[in-house]
């Protein structure tokens, strides 16, 4: 059996349970305990498309250096689900530890000699100490928190305080939870050498950080952006985003005396209607958005093309999941990049924003609305399941009180009074963006919004020149967008290099870690994180400044690479795809091995 290296604040803990047994709160407790001890942590849900009864996993990575991505390694596995026991055991890295419920014997065949197996009779302990059947099941999951507290050296006082906070309204639950925790804790202390060689210790200060999911952060961002209309059709993994928006609106936007609501959330009959609702609402002057996932974008595409051509501001957030078709709804990918960039028939192109973490989900919710209003076009935020539904540690969100929404070029009655005539699609400023008016204000500002061929007056036309006049101006607007979207983020290598890495969205954490590992092997690469489409000038500069550029993404067809080659065809042969698309968040190892192998072959 390989000797286990002692590692402090650098381990992966994975917990295998059954969906619907209350393990989520136990896992949250573990995550938060580590967080409160000042250890950088992330928690990833690997869950089935199921309500109750199927296997589910939660993976916590604690890393003193702040690495956030998946590693593919498991140091400590808690195998609470007999159904997946063998798979779970096989997943433990050599030298690792497996904790299981020893109330029932495991067959000898299910054994490994390169890991340490720790049996704790969790069900038995709970059956002996709790009366109610439901409580026995729930407390079994709480009891493993106690076992892990002993094995991993978690601060029991921190856990107690967390319980007191979460059950402030039900103090009796603090006692029962704590009782279960101590059952596991004491058993582990008595039977095993605690702590394990891999364990936690109180380290820095996390008081300026928070734990949040991308969907919560985006929902909150839309509240701060001043969105008043949200329309949606429920779809995994975007549903929790509208839940968050709705919850924060109830918290911040209800008149305490009258109960009147300063928002309107509409659960549509399908995604087509959700898109239509937000188009109507934005057209009439509210800020309106829809959260969805890939299948929803497919259905919304007709309206997206309409919004592009009729120039209606609108915000779509696509929390990407695995395609094609229904795919794997509870797994992650970056597979809708190409679709969103050109959604709908005819010549269309749309600004895209790529948040890398929940903090950027919050910020880009606001940016997306300012861009949509300024550019009068649909804007997409491309989040994904990994960002949207997993627990991320990010710096605390901040707010500038001086911020005011950019509502773009909107003319009111006073502006109209000074004009001879209002012309909806006249480019008077030369930036491709024309002035709009809102219904309900002034008959002089009336115009006709249509998806059919129209001239600069908004009138129906089949005249070739009048049609092309409008379509060409939309390209001018696209050029203007380049100066408005968020810049790409450049990180230089420790030494000058002709190697580059381009990535975006949730691949960021894996790239950061991979660059450090590669540097240890003598491979140095500059890194450009793209945050928006259209590409800003530094993207083009980066491509030309490097001989080999690895484009890291989580889809099969290298979609971002294709967009880069469309923009900068002469660099196509320098762009090397590094792809990960099995549905799990990209691990840093995939990038390290991909780039190392390429460099060895090239050497």
């Amino acid at each position, binding site marked *: 059996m390989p000797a286990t290296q002692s590692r402090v604040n650098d381990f992966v803990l994975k917990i295998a349970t059954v969906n619907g047994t209350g393990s989520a709160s136990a896992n949250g407790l573990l995550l938060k305990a580590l967080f409160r001890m000042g250890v950088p942590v992330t928690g990833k849900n690997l869950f089935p498309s199921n309500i109750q009864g199927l296997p589910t996993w939660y993976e916590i990575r604690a890393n003193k250096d702040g690495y956030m991505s998946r590693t593919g390694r498991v140091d400590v596995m808690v195998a609470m689900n007999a159904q997946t026991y063998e798979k779970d055991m096989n997943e433990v890295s050599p030298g690792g530890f497996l904790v299981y419920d020893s109330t029932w014997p495991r067959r000898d065949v299910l054994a490994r000699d390169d890991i340490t197996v720790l049996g704790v009779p969790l069900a038995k302990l709970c059956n002996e100490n709790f009366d109610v059947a439901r409580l026995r099941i729930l407390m079994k999951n709480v009891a493993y928190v106690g076992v892990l507290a002993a094995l991993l050296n978690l601060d029991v006082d921190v856990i107690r305080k967390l319980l007191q906070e979460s059950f402030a309204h039900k103090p009796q639950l603090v006692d029962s939870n704590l009782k279960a925790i101590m059952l596991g804790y004491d058993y582990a202390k008595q039977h095993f050498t605690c702590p394990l060689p891999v364990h936690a210790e109180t380290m820095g200060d996390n008081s300026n950080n928070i734990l*949040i999911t991308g969907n919560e952060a985006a929902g*909150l961002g839309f509240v701060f952006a001043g969105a008043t209309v949200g329309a949606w059709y429920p779809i995994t993994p975007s549903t929790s985003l509208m839940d968050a928006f709705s919850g924060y609106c109830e918290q*911040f936007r209800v008149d305490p005396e009258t109960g009147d609501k300063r928002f309107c959330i*509409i659960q549509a009959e399908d995604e087509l209607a959700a898109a239509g609702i937000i188009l109507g*609402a934005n057209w*009439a002057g509210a800020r309106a958005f829809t959260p969805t996932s890939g299948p929803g974008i497919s259905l919304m595409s007709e309206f997206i093309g309409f919004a592009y051509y009729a120039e209606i501001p609108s915000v779509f957030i696509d929390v990407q999941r695995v395609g094609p078709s229904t795919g794997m709804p509870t797994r992650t990918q970056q597979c809708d990049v190409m679709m969103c960039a050109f959604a709908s028939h005819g010549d269309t192109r749309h600004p895209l924003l790529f948040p890398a973490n929940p903090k950027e989900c919050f910020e880009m919710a606001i940016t997306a609305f300012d861009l949509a209003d300024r550019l009068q076009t649909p804007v997409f935020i491309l989040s994904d399941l990994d960002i949207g539904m997993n627990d991320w540690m990010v710096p605390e969100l901040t707010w500038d009180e001086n911020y005011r929404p950019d509502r773009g070029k909107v003319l009111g009655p006073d502006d109209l009074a000074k004009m001879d005539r209002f012309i909806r699609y006249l480019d008077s400023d030369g930036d491709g963006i024309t002035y709009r008016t809102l219904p309900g204000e002034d008959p002089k500002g009336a115009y006709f919004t249509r998806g059919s061929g129209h001239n600069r007056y908004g009138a129906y*036309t089949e005249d070739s020149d009048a049609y092309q006049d409008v379509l060409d101006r939309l390209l001018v607007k696209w050029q203007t967008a380049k100066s408005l979207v968020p810049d790409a983020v450049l990180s230089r290598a420790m030494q000058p290099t002709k190697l580059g890495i381009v990535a975006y969205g949730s691949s960021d954490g894996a790239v950061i870690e991979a660059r450090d590992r590669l540097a240890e092997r003598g491979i140095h690469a500059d890194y450009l994180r793209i945050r928006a489409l259209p590409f800003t000038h530094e993207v083009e500069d980066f491509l030309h400044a490097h001989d080999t550029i690895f484009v890291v993404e989580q889809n099969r067809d290298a979609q971002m690479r294709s967009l880069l080659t469309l923009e900068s065809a002469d660099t196509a042969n320098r762009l090397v795809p590094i792809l990960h698309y099995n549905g799990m968040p990209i691990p840093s190892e995939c990038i390290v091995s991909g780039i190392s192998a390429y460099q060895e072959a090239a050497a």
Partner: protein
Amino acid sequence: MTFIPKPQIDLPGQHENDLGLSLRDYEGSLSTLCAGCGHDSITAALVQALWEMSIRPEMLIKMSGIGCSSKTPAYFVHGAHGFNSVHGRMPSVATGASAANRDLICIGISGDGDSLSIGFGQFGHVIRRNVNMLYLIENNGVYGLTKGQFSASADAGSTAKNGTVNQMQNINTVATAISMGVSFVGRAFSGDREQLVPLLKAAIAHPGCAVLDIISPCVTFNNHEGSTKSYAYTREHKKQATETDLVPPRAEIKASYYAGDTHPVRLHDGSTILLKKADPDYDPTRRNNALAYLERHRRRGQIVTGLLFIDQNVPDMHIQSRTVATPLKDLDYRDLNPGSAALEALQRGMK
């Protein structure tokens, strides 16, 4: 073909409404529909109704989908914003516009293809949501722009211009709307302006989703013998169940005008819909009776017209959502943004 502006001719002696506007102020661009199209008669009735009601043009929004009917919003009230959306999806756009600004007067114009086939889902759900709007279906039983295919409202047994016989059952707009829980539904004939104008006014005043199914013959593709949506067939088979008028908030209800079996329905804005039963058997406030009456007359080959069902007590979308009285689009940003102190407090729970 392209956009044809309508010449604005000031005729001497034109009447003005309470806003000082003449009928001309409620007109739009020149219709490009076929001469004699029923839809143009409906447009003319709308102009009349809106003028009589003194609707401020800028407060009106004209919404539509795709098809001959959906072209018509360009042909009335040039001072109102129009939105010619995608096929079958007008209801969702109207829903969003209404959500953003509840003070707007929303008229959605659709057709039998737009609402009963491609847009059947949205038609049902805008009714369920009871969005405050007039939902007008210009029903001719045929796809005109694509040259004469049957629509879902074509009656079984009716023939197309090329002789094909429709064998499928039709979708009955009124019965469907009633079963979906509509709060106001009526049926009229484009050729009967005397009935149409007051019905339009009542529907616009109704605080909820008012559906009007208007038989509007297609002179080019569905006005032949064998059609059940032609001018001749509709005139022969029309049966009026109710007569309707709208009395504005401050006007006096003249008892003599509506003597007899009159049923006044007072609306939330203070106006009153006067409903007179043309057929003593009919009760437009009871859903079951309405459906049974429709079915009885359908079997006799009769097209029942008038205000056919009304329920004043169905809450509209904004009442259901408890939305604030000020239109959402007019709310001050400072009332929408929780601010930095709230953000900081909120995040204490995330640590």
